[in-house]
């Protein structure tokens, strides 16, 4: 199995586990940890894509809320200081990408005749 096939297999299993967790969370968990969700059902399918993608985070938050380990004061501490670091790293990334791209621009060799690199496939024989 190639590296690419292994990655796609892992992605498939990630999504399958996420699907199982989404069933448990949306039918059982959500009513236990959020009073605003009780009696509200139409919005729940909208949550499925996120659970498929970030199910480890969902499990962690579900555990924290179920176990009563929530620290309310942390809710009001926005990570603003991180914005400067994020902005500097993003600007550096943008600058690097533009430099590499602009220094390697090419003119398409439209006047060069095509060259066969490999034998034709079975369908063309």
């Amino acid at each position, binding site marked *: 199995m190639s590296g690419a096939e292994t990655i796609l297999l892992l992605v498939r299993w990630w999504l399958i586990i996420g699907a199982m967790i989404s069933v448990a969370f949306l039918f059982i968990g959500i009513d236990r940890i959020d009073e*605003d969700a009780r009696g509200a059902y139409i919005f729940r399918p*909208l949550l499925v894509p*996120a659970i498929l993608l*970030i199910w480890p*985070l969902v499990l962690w938050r579900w555990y924290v809320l179920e176990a009563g380990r929530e620290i309310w004061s*942390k809710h009001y501490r926005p990570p603003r200081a991180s*914005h400067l670091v994020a902005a500097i790293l993003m600007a550096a*990334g*943008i600058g690097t990408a533009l430099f590499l*791209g602009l220094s390697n621009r090419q003119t398409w060799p439209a006047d060069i005749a095509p060259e066969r690199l490999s034998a034709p496939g079975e369908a063309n024989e």
Partner: protein
Amino acid sequence: MSVKYVPVQWNRNKWIYDAVMLAGVALFLWIFVELAPGLLSHERPINAPIHNGRAFGACAFVMLTVILCIGPLARLDQRFLPLLYNRRHFGVMTVFVAITHASFIIDWYFNFSPTNKYVAVLSANTDFGQALGFPFEIFGVFALIVLMILSATSHDFWMKFLTPPVWKRLHYLIYPAYAAVVAHVALGVLLDAQNVTFLWIVLIGSLAVATLHLLAAFSETRGSDTRAEGTDWVRICDAHDITEGFAKIARLPGGDRVAVFRQDGLLSAISNACAHQNGPLGEGKVIDCLVTCPWHGFQYDVRNGRSPAPFTEKIPTYDIRLHGSSVMVNPVANPPGTPVDPVPVPQEVLA
């Protein structure tokens, strides 16, 4: 604001916002595909899947660029706040445009072979050691996954469930995602030296995003707020420094920010962080004891930190007192929704 969750909390402003956004997307695609293909280096004979793939890709890039400009613009100039109001719909629409772009590209460039097309995306080019011919698709894959995560977690449920700080940290992924999008474009379509118009769109757009975010981040560190010292009651400012109907924001020793409001000569102190997305409540205006968050319009009574019924959001309050003309705050926050009697300011202090 929450009572019971609904799929989408529509109102007239959101309908208008979305209608303008959809019209903009349609106009962009029409111009790209029909009106000015020559401007974007499409004078050569290319087929419909490539043309459509490029059109949706360019549209997604421009949308993402606009989205990322809105945040810092609103921080730097409050006149841009209305654009921030419904930005999440803008983001969700961008993801659909980006997925359409990916579908056109994968179904054309990576299809028609015995190899699975998704395997082909990851394995067709693995020359990671060179700039020219780098498998730029991988940057697009990363950005698309991030955009899907951010879009999927945009419902208010996720902000409450994950807590605003965790949600915000998760959504910081947009910064590496945007840098990846620029790399995807720069090492992809921009390598075509004949493509001049899109080169300028990418240069101006990406540099605008980088510049605005750096400006907003640096202005935040300078900040207009006061840093309060000490672990006991801390001095925030003089009472007459607080404008009637508005607040003074201070950073407390523990790192939290408090907003001290003055209304009708009475002082109240609440957390500066909105329960929704930690928006800066201290930049809002108080009317009838209710402060409105400038980001998304959530409201709180400054005397008890509670949203007006039937809404259920709560934020911490702080004990407050006057020492001469100095406003003093207990840096230990009260639990969210705790009532605190407002402190009257004598007229001679305000004079």
